[in-house]
């Protein structure tokens, strides 16, 4: 494991590598909902910008995406549990977008065939905001949203 780590360090770290690849045009926007970490998508400031960075149009609203064990009110913005489940067939990816965070895109999960289209994690929220669950299924995009009220913000501290 140490060898790999050294190689990573030698190559100047992941960020530089990805930046170079992105600059060289190797990372096309449509690969953003795949393996590589997309700088442009993660630095986008609005939901529209994220969608643009991911190279997708306006997603369709869907009632088949549900928030599981996600609070309506979060007392501590530093740790907000978010669970998202998609009942849309052939779900390939699930992304979490938080509208009023400094950067909107929070996490993006690729769901290979055989893995349940449901994930849970914990995020930071700067303030009360709409949280969007963006789902890619069979090449199409769907979205659902939920407002989470935050009583104590999780950024800037």
């Amino acid at each position, binding site marked *: *494991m140490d060898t*790999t*780590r050294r190689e*990573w*360090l030698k*190559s*100047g*770290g*992941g*960020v530089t590598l990805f930046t170079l690849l992105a600059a060289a045009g190797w990372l096309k926007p449509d690969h953003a909902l795949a*393996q*590589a*970490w*997309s700088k442009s998508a*993660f630095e986008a400031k609005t939901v529209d910008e994220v969608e643009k960075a991911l190279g997708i149009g306006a997603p369709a609203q869907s009632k088949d995406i549900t928030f599981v064990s996600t609070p309506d009110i979060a007392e501590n913005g*530093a*740790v*907000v*549990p978010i*669970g998202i489940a998609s009942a849309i067939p052939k779900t390939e990816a699930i992304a979490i977008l*938080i509208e009023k*965070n*400094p*950067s909107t*895109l*929070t*996490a*993006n*999960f*690729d*769901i*290979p065939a*055989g*893995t*349940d289209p*449901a*994930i*849970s*994690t*914990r*995020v*930071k*929220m700067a303030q009360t905001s709409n949280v969007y669950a963006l789902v890619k299924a069979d090449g199409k995009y769907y979205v659902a949203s939920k407002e989470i009220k935050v009583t104590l913000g*999780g*950024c*800037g*501290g």
Partner: protein
Amino acid sequence: MPDPMKIRATLVGDSTEVKTIISHEMETGQRKDGQGKIVPAWFIQTVTATYAGKTVLSAQWGPAVAKNPFLAFKFKGGAKGEKVQITWVDNRGEKRTDEAVIG
């Protein structure tokens, strides 16, 4: 060397439920220290879980994932005694892999 992750993999029916807590600061790059200087961003960018040589989940994260990230998911298959592996890489290029035996 970063601290190990806590991974629990449990066979439920014909699926394996994986729950993990990764030990990581997940510094946003927004916060200021005592001297008013911005603490540089330091966060996990990619997480990959594999079982039997096959990727069962991969994720890209931004700095808004909470400190010491929690992640839970479920995949079809898996057998008691087999191993699930999780690897993360952060924006400094630091990397860690841990594994858990499915129970």
